């Protein structure tokens, strides 16, 4: 999912996670409608959230995050035997050496790894990633994208919100563009790889055409913490 700032990408993610109430439309997870459910119910039905700004618990240690997030009793993730703390630490060895450090003591990259680990331990069927590479150094961002690709290849459904079109094209099977809360482009990535020109044009600042004003209530963006 790509789009300019303010296009509604984070609102979409928050709506799926239940943090923002949908004003209309449907949200289904594996055929089960979840729109209007409370966030913990949606999480229990298999939605993992890696929010923008990571939002790790600043005063919990890495180990405590993992203990709190672990939900081995839920259905195993597709393509895997279910996420365990041991498997997470194998996948993200950096967390293993930081187990006793608090969330606020971690670097941005480590916080991002922890936020992904926290979401995975809930055994999600759908992983929502809201700009996971934002604010990371290029090599760390590449490492996060590798991880996302590996998870997707394992059979996990990933909804990735990205600012940078090239990154989205690199990892995704399908690219959609959001503009003023509406999907204006939705194609397999193969097409975008062959001819990215229409996508690039759509995302350029010059192409911005505000929609006619509507009287729908503005969505609440309460979760957009820095």
């Amino acid at each position, binding site marked *: 999912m790509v789009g300019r700032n303010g296009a509604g990408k984070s609102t979409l993610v928050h709506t799926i996670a239940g943090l923002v109430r949908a004003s209309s439309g449907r949200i289904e997870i594996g055929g089960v409608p979840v729109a209007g459910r409370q966030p913990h119910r949606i*999480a229990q039905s298999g939605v993992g959230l890696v*929010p923008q700004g990571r939002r790790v*618990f600043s005063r*919990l240690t890495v180990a405590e995050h993992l203990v709190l997030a672990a939900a081995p009793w839920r259905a195993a993730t597709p393509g895997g035997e279910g996420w365990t703390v041991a498997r997470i630490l194998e996948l993200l060895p950096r967390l293993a050496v930081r187990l006793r450090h608090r969330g606020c003591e971690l670097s941005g990259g480590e916080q991002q790894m922890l936020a992904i680990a926290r979401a995975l331990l809930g055994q999600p069927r759908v992983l929502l990633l809201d700009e996971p590479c934002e604010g990371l150094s290029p090599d760390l961002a590449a490492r996060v994208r590798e991880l996302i690709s590996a998870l997707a290849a394992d059979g996990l459904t990933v909804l990735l919100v990205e600012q940078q079109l090239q990154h989205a094209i690199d990892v995704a099977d399908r690219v959609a563009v959001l503009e003023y809360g509406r999907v204006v482009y939705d194609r397999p990535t193969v097409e975008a790889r062959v001819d990215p020109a229409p996508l690039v044009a759509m995302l350029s600042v010059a192409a911005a055409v505000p929609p006619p004003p509507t009287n729908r209530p503005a969505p609440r963006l309460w979760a957009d913490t820095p």
Partner: protein
Amino acid sequence: MIAVAVGTNRIDPYLIPALDGVAYGLLVFVAASGLVVCFGVANILNLAHGTLYAIGGYTAAALLDGGWASLALALAVGVLAAAAAGVLLAGLLTPVAAGNHLTQALLTFGVALAGGSLLVAGFGPDDPQVRVPAALDGSVVVAGHRYAAYRLVFIAVAAVISAALYLVVRRTRAGMLVRAAVDDPEMVACLGVSPARIRAGVLAAAGALAGAAGVLGAPIIGPGTDTADTVLLLSLVVVVLGGLGSMAGTLLAALAIGEIQTLGVALLPSAAPFLLFAAMAAVLAVRARGLAARWGAT
């Protein structure tokens, strides 16, 4: 030698009030920690918190007969009754959104008024006498002064309760949930934990702590028609002074209140009626986020 003697004589009259301040402060800590946790974790302003303490106090007055068994029974009954009242409050508060403090205040204040009337109806309008176990009814000599044995033992027991509370918050999964929910309740919900269950758990724990404080503290802040108001007021001052972020802040604030109410009053008897609130105003003027607010926190 003379200087030392003079120094000791100057300190000496204030030793017992200072010790009393520790007992009072620890009592306020155990009583108020539940309110702090409710506010910090579940974002609930519970004005019926003092009533939970009063339940413990009246239970102690009704059951204590001077024996150890009656103390154990009163403790069990007081803790369970106050915890049940906490769960009841959580149920009543379900339709009220977290953070809607005005509605919460109105609802819990109404519950406090009704609860106070029920306690008076059940136990009578007179302040009941509380009989501590006979073995603790005497006094012991502390640094040349006679001091109530019960208070000395209370200090030790309250310290144990405080340490246990610290360990629960630090070491258990429930404690982790509590700390995580103070930080970011939305993300806790996104981990699949029901906010309603957290609310009920926190209010039950707050009730249990207030009930325990009410039973054990009955000889210090005894049951009576204005007990609930006194405890609520002291707890709210703890919230203001200590902030919501840390247990250390709550403990520091409670001990400060204890010393102000005993040592402060002994030092400045004429200022007794407003010393506590003058101290609160001073702290607010200097550090609006409480004594132990974290520096550099965003």
